[in-house]
């Protein structure tokens, strides 16, 4: 009889231990893009506030959205959707209204990036970082002069060699711009034309990667593809041959913002975290680590000149004008999604 109960007792003890440790400290759960927030910043936040951070990552807006839809209560406290997902999630009642009184550091933000169409008065979101999607080239393999436009990715010599972002809006942006349309079009005809163009591109595509597109470049697996400016900058730190190109049809620009999903269990901690992320020193650390431009204006003055003058990180006004900021496309997103799925399954 004695031996029979031993496993039960052990089990009970283990369960108890698990339950006890779960309620040890105040915590916030952050759900963010892969490689988008330095570990050191999280540690500093815990040190300053005593709030522990549980950090999980995703590789696409859709995955994040699907997960948030699934988890109604006891969910994440902070997520970082891109522009058009902020409006979509706000519309669907998935986000908590922000309490601006708890976010005094908002004064540090660039007014150009506040009160945008996708979130009037920043009711739901605070911009974290912004950036662009362009082309990365390994100049050891392909001369940089040969690559100037999105159209170059369609060249037959890149058959089975291309890396694309695993992001429908960015991939469609490319084709829409080649066709001379807006990357934010809601016109089904234009989207269809872009789809037909992309279909021709599929034989060139080796892989989709939105986790960390620079790594296949660094590992020598690909030498040309779509990339975010920050990833390109990080890649160049390790291999100077990898260069970033702003395509002449215009790069895609985006903003990723902090939001607090409904069902967050620690909204107060989430506010504290978002406020913390707007301090200039913290924003500076993020730029230095990942090479994306920050909306926290005072942070830019703190940066070394080789970073603050890098055209890869901080594009000049002309390049921004040439490109286009990603915007909400409303219901048209379903048309995009339909074609996107066709692309992903048919090749």
């Amino acid at each position: 009889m004695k031996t029979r109960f031993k496993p039960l007792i052990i089990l009970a003890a283990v369960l108890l231990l698990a339950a006890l440790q779960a309620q040890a400290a105040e915590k916030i759960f952050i759900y963010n893009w892969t490689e988008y927030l330095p570990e050191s910043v999280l540690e500093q936040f815990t040190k300053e506030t005593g709030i522990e951070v549980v950090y999980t990552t995703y590789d696409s807006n859709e995955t994040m959205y699907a997960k948030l839809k699934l988890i109604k209560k006891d969910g994440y406290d902070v997520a970082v959707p891109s522009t058009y997902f902020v409006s979509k999630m706000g519309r669907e009642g998935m986000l908590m209204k922000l309490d601006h009184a708890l976010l005094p550091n908002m004064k540090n933000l660039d007014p150009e990036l506040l009160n945008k169409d996708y979130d009037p008065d920043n009711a739901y979101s605070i911009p974290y970082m912004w950036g662009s999607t362009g082309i990365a080239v390994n100049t050891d393999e392909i001369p940089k002069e040969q690559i100037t436009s999105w159209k170059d990715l369609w060249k037959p010599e890149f058959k089975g060699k291309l890396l694309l972002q695993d992001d429908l809006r960015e991939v469609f942006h490319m084709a829409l711009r080649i066709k001379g349309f807006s990357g934010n079009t809601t016109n089904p005809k234009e989207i269809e034309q872009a789809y037909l163009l992309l279909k021709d591109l599929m034989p060139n595509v080796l892989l989709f990667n939105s986790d960390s597109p620079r790594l296949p470049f660094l590992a020598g697996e690909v030498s040309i593809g779509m990339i975010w400016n920050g990833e390109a900058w990080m890649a160049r730190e390790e291999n100077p041959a990898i260069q970033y190109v702003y395509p002449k049809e215009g790069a895609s620009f985006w903003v990723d913002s902090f939001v607090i999903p409904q069902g967050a269990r620690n909204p107060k901690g989430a506010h504290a975290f978002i406020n913390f992320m707007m301090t200039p020193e913290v924003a500076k650390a993020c730029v230095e680590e990942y090479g994306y431009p920050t909306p926290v204006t005072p942070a830019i003055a703190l940066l070394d000149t080789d970073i603050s003058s890098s055209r890869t990180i901080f594009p000049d006004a002309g390049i921004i004008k040439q490109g286009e900021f990603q915007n909400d496309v409303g219901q048209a997103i379903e048309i995009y999604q339909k074609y996107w799925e066709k692309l992903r399954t048919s090749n």
Partner: protein
Amino acid sequence: MNILRLFYFAGIFFYLYLPISVLVVNAFNLNKYGMKWGGFTFKWFTAMLGNHSLMEAARHSVVIAVCAASLATMIGALAAIGLNRYRFFGRKVIQGTSMTLMMAPDIILAIAFLVLFVTLGIGLGFWSLLFSHITFCLPFAIMTITGRLQDFDPNILDAARDLGASEKNILARVILPMMRPALISSWLLAFTLSLDDVIISSFVTGPSYDVLPLKIFSMVKVGVKPEVNALAALLVLLSLALVIVSQLMLKEKKNHENTI
């Protein structure tokens, strides 16, 4: 012919062990990308231990694996006894379900569990993970234990009954002790299955309970992480230990049988 055979075995084992060896060697490699040997280091093991979320996920995984293995073994033992000793309505259905659960690809169980938890309104986290793990380990536990039960000499049970033992006592005093080796191997099998599972866990857990395979998955998708190498080396050692333990157990069982 013999040389050919030797080459063949060497080839297969080379294929099986080359990737693991590369991992273990790289766990001690100072060179971050593991393409060249940069010198010996324990740095990555320290980094791994310092990686708070990785360690937390590891703790979660062990807790789940221990709980799931223990409960699956207990329920599995009862189920094996029930299915073997009792004839009741629905017995075939249970056997069929158990078979289906064992044969179905993990992905199907994963979404079936997800749909169940969402329908029942059970939040995704510790409990959903535990229930799923117990359930997918259960058929294997039943199989292992049934195998042992069928080797029993039914005369012993009859003797116990003739001597006036109640059903409860027969279970506790006769069947359970005789099943011990099977219980242990079932536990080890369930433990490994639970620790190894990626597919089901990735569907049924939530933010509050990240487990090791998922953490590893998100880390390796990004690329080479030396901490993962260190962790992988540890896991290889762990499985080595488990195999040795189960082998010893098997030997003990055989010796035991021989003495009877």
